[in-house]
């Protein structure tokens, strides 16, 4: 090898190549993310504006768009009754899902029973296979057991469709607990149920919180089932209400649309801050590496 000392004198672009690359990457990211940002900013700005010009600039601030909160819209049920229904739906789905998946996840993670691996595969398939294509039959089932047009029908349906996947998520949290902890509990003289209740359950609290939030949000946002299986206005939830408003006021009153939409999306945004951290760290397992 020759004894030459190379020169590290570089052009501006070479020296700053990493900084330039970063700037380019961030610019591209901002550009492709723009529709999302624009949409949500509009929703907020528009709901408080008389009218807007040039995309985002309000001509005059107003609360008129929020009138649906204190006066009933003609042909629509009371907004607070509808909001209460939405809450009941979300909480119901959440309660059932937590109760069952905290147990189901443990069983999937820690018990060896015949057909375990078949069941795990079945759950994955189930998740990929939207039950939405079974709507016709579900309609008949709900009618048959008298839960058509009932909030309970939607709660049970929604919970049962999500329990398999919820159990899978909980399984992931249980999988993360070292076997030694459970072995120690058994050696220390506890039965398996006691070990579950006293050792495992406290350790998967974060998992239960995540599952609870997702269950709540999915109940809160549910559209298709409510739209299809609920007819009486007193049983409406917000998704049905907003859908109706979109249909009736779309070209007439964007301010109202934005306000109703923003009202509906607030809990989602609040919870979003809690779960987005978890979601972006979530790894969907089961992939050959």
């Amino acid at each position, binding site marked *: *090898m020759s004894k030459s*000392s190379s020169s590290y004198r570089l052009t501006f672009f070479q020296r700053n190549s990493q900084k330039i690359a970063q700037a380019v990457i961030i610019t591209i990211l901002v550009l492709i993310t723009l529709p999302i940002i624009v949409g949500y900013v509009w929703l907020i700005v528009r709901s408080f504006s008389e009218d807007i010009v040039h995309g985002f600039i309000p001509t005059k601030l107003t609360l008129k768009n929020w009138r649906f909160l204190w006066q009933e819209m003609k042909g629509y049920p009371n907004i607070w009754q509808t909001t209460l229904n939405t809450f009941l739906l979300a909480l119901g789905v959440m309660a059932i899902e937590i109760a069952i998946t905290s147990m189901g996840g443990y069983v999937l993670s820690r018990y060896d029973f015949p057909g375990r691996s078949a069941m795990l595969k079945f759950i994955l398939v189930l998740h990929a296979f939207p039950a939405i294509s079974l709507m016709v039959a579900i309609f008949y089932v709900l009618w048959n057991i008298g839960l058509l047009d009932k909030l309970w029908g939607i709660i049970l349906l929604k919970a049962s469709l999500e329990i398999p996947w919820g159990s899978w998520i909980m399984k992931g949290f249980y999988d993360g607990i070292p076997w030694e902890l459970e072995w120690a509990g058994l050696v220390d003289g506890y039965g398996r149920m006691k070990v579950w209740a006293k050792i495992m359950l406290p350790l998967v609290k974060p998992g239960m919180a995540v599952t609870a939030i997702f269950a709540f949000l999915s109940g809160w946002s549910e559209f298709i089932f409510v739209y299809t299986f609920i007819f009486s206005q007193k049983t409406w939830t917000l998704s049905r209400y907003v859908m109706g408003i979109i249909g009736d006021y779309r070209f007439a009153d964007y301010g109202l649309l934005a306000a109703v939409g923003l009202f509906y999306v607030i809990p989602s945004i609040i919870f979003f801050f809690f779960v987005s951290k978890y979601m972006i760290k979530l790894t969907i397992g089961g992939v050959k590496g």
Partner: protein
Amino acid sequence: MPSIRVVNFSKYFGKVKAVDNVSFEVEDGEFVALLGPSGCGKTTTLLTLAGIYKPTAGEIYFGDQLVNDVPPKYRNIGMVFQNYALYPHMSVFENIAFPLRAKKLSKEEITKKVKTVAKKLMIDQLLDRKPMQISGGQQQRVALARALVKEPEILLFDEPLSNLDAKLRMLMRAEIKKLQSDLGITSVYVTHDQAEAMTMASRIAVFSMGKLVQYGTPDEIYDHPKNMFVAAFVGNPPMNFLKDFSVVSEGNSVYLQRGTSKLRLPDSRKGSLPEVVPEKVVVGVRPEDFRIERKEVDNGIPGTVYVLEPLGRDVIVNVRVENHEDEITKIFAEPGETFKPNERVYIVPNLEKVHLFDPETEETIL
């Protein structure tokens, strides 16, 4: 080949000071080891030399040129990683050729260079295999080949031997050393294994908690450690520390005294003592600098044999010091000598070679 000069270099990750005001120099063609426990900042320093990290403060020079802002690809360095970082989806040939392809060399040239370097490292028969299909030692050679093929001016090693078994590690140790001295490439080698640093490097930089504690030749580090950390980290078994000795002068002589034990410091050494000595000092003695006697002798410290650790050629005798039950000294016994557990003995330090440390600052006094 350029020299490397690191001047007042610091690297913070948020509030964590990974490296704190470190300066050292690596001469043209020299082999320097960065030694220290995990988390001491040695790997951060290496990655900064590579250009992967940028200094928070300070300067890095290659030759006389500041390279702080120079991206890795323009630094002309070769690097060997701890897990080798061989791309699993490429064949051995493709792995070695990767740096040449980035330089856009012609096909013939790439093939020629890859074959030459593969031959030198005795992996030319493995070129079609995938990294997963060859042994750890072979993967190591491929990683070396990939670092060397671009004819770098600086070689960086990040604990390259820590994943090999003990036997292979000894073999590769010698081989890397030979290769480096043949090629004369300026090299920096990160390791937590003091034996590796001692055997391979011409100079060692000992790191602790983000700071460079001592920089010197292996002999300097071993014989004149700058503080108790270096003294304990380098050498196996580590240096023995006997606490709570006082330095007393009686007439012309200087003694190290603790209870009934009284050690006379040779005249040749007492002159090196500083004027002010702390009230209590720690006496440091290497395992090979003790002698074990069965009868009471001058400079002897009484104790009982605690346990024996035969190593085949040598025996390490563990002696529990009387009245200081927490001090278990490890001593290489003279060949042929045999001891039994619980035997009463006197351990005699070679006072020409003892070290004295300040227990507060842990700095070396003598």
